[in-house]
């Protein structure tokens, strides 16, 4: 699990590293603003991303999040806000 409560940039960086590994691409080619589909994230790999995120953040995530927040930046922003809300620190 992640130490403490990761903020938006930390979640973003984590996603970039994870996707670079999954998609076998250099980290600098993973554009956090790009849509997940533009990075080549199919539905199975989307599920895998969320599962790894769940484990790291220690929270449950629904598979639909990838469609609602279709880029690393959007997903990281949502997850950071949600975590802050849950911990009453927003």
């Amino acid at each position: 699990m992640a130490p403490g409560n990761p903020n938006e940039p930390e979640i973003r960086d984590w996603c970039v590293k994870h996707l670079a590994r999954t998609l076998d691409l250099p980290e600098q080619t993973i554009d956090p603003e790009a849509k997940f589909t533009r990075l080549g994230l199919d539905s199975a790999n989307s599920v895998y991303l969320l599962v790894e995120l769940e484990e790291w953040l220690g929270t449950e995530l629904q598979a639909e999040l990838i469609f609602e927040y279709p880029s690393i930046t959007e997903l990281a922003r949502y997850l950071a806000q949600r975590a802050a809300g849950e911990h009453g620190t927003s």
Partner: protein
Amino acid sequence: MRQVSTEPAERRPSSAPAIPVEVTSLASVLRNRAAERPDDAGYIFLPDRRGERLQLTYSELYTRARAVAVRLAEHGNRGDRAALLFPPGLDFVVAFFGCLLAGIIAVPLMIPRRDSARDASAALLADCSPRFAMTSRELVTVARPDLAERFSGAELEWLFVDAATAESNTAGIALPNLEPADIAFLQYTSGSTSTPKGVIVSHDNLLHNLEMIRIAFGNTPQSTHVTWVPHYHDMGLILGILQSLYVGALCVLMAPVSFLQRPLSWLRAISDFQADLAGGPNFAYDRCIKRHRPEEMHGVDLSCWKLAYNGAEPVRAETIERFATTFAPYGFAANSAHPAYGMAEATLLIASGKRGGGPLIRTVSRSALQRHRAVPPTPGEDAYKVVGCGRPLAGTCLAIVDPDNQRRLRAGRIGEIWTSGPHVARGYWRHSGASAAVFQAVIDGEPEGVWLRTGDLGCVDENDELYVTGRIKDVIIVRGVNHYPQDIENTVQDCHPALRRHCGAAFGVLDQNGEEQLVIVQEVERAYRHDFAIGEVIGSIREAVTQEHDIAPREIVLVRSGTVPQTTSGKIQRSLTKQMFLARSLAVLQ
């Protein structure tokens, strides 16, 4: 070839398995189950984290399916098609049996991705022109309201099948008597947007293959099965849903996404239900190994799991070995691993090992394999492990044939795998040309028999064990799903005007883990060569292919105009393009 382990050399009886005469279709099997064991659970659906567990007894299933059948018979005619569009769950099972009882041809469909612009469903609907679309109210009104819009052009009559839909008492209403030759369902092997082909499976095919599976797997009413494989996939439907009813065993269903998210929950369900039977494509076992967390395995006992089938994509020795090692501490026995081979054109199963026989793994020379020879590796050479997929099923024949001259090859030689027997389906729906070429092949010098050409390459050893070593058909298999290169190439060429029509190739390449990856090679028009952003276009291609086909290209290579090899008649030479890609001899645009 070096034999690592041996099996008894006795051969299976070659006579066709006997199906009881009173069983003319799976509909009659359901009727019998409902009469003999009305209160036994036939199906259980395990929800995702929060939902409630659902169950269907044989009597409930029969009553609901019968009511659906009466509605179908009122509004349609025998032989009409019904597209089945369901989320994972029990309503699909009711709808499918409703079709069987009514003599309506079921067409199970995958639910298209919500962000795809043009999915395969439209082409499938045009191909089989269904009268009905059967679905659950919740799916089309709440979860996916876009579906009605997507299918609005097809003039479908929508029929809701769910527990909430009240069914009237239909006990007295007569339903048609089915003949063994009647068509039970159409199996589209995957979404193919250019030329979808639906395999015509008759009741006769279905019963024969179910009986062959029962014999090969040694299934009994105690063979509780836990499956997450999608119901629109031939493995999920026939091996999961239908084989269970056929042998009278409980079938526990999980949603595919539940498995992808938490593969260990599948193993826990196997333990909870003391399941005897469970399996999936090779990647499912890899996924379990990858997600193995000892702290999540408390109390899981896999000693009940006697048959762990592995099929629908190449079976990898490394996966079999690692899975056995990883899960041995939880009681998983190495000899439960059960590689099998089949395809929708043969209803489902073509070859299978014996229950408890364990996998047969042989080591061959990798370089010789690429030249279609199965020989032992020489010292210092790259050794490659091939996994036996068992022997031909009872009542079927299998031949290895030279695909170029249709001559039968002897044991140990690699050629195309051909099969014949009552499991071979009747052909493709309304594609007589393609059907004749695939389903009615003749071996040179043996005019008396017709065979199904599988398009896969392999060899058999002296004990009739089948090894699948490659394929000659143009299909890319990722996570057990078939993808057709023509479809992907069309999507690519629609991305940008600079991408030359009919001048690209999509093919599969094995990565360092032995997993198949999609590679796209595409020509660029000369006029655009100096005037376009390569990175931008590659991004568009990756996005379109991921969205439309739900498969991510591992590499996209843009090449000079006129450099993707074609035959003299203008057909793309995909395997030659693949060789050039691997040899790095393509004229790549930088």
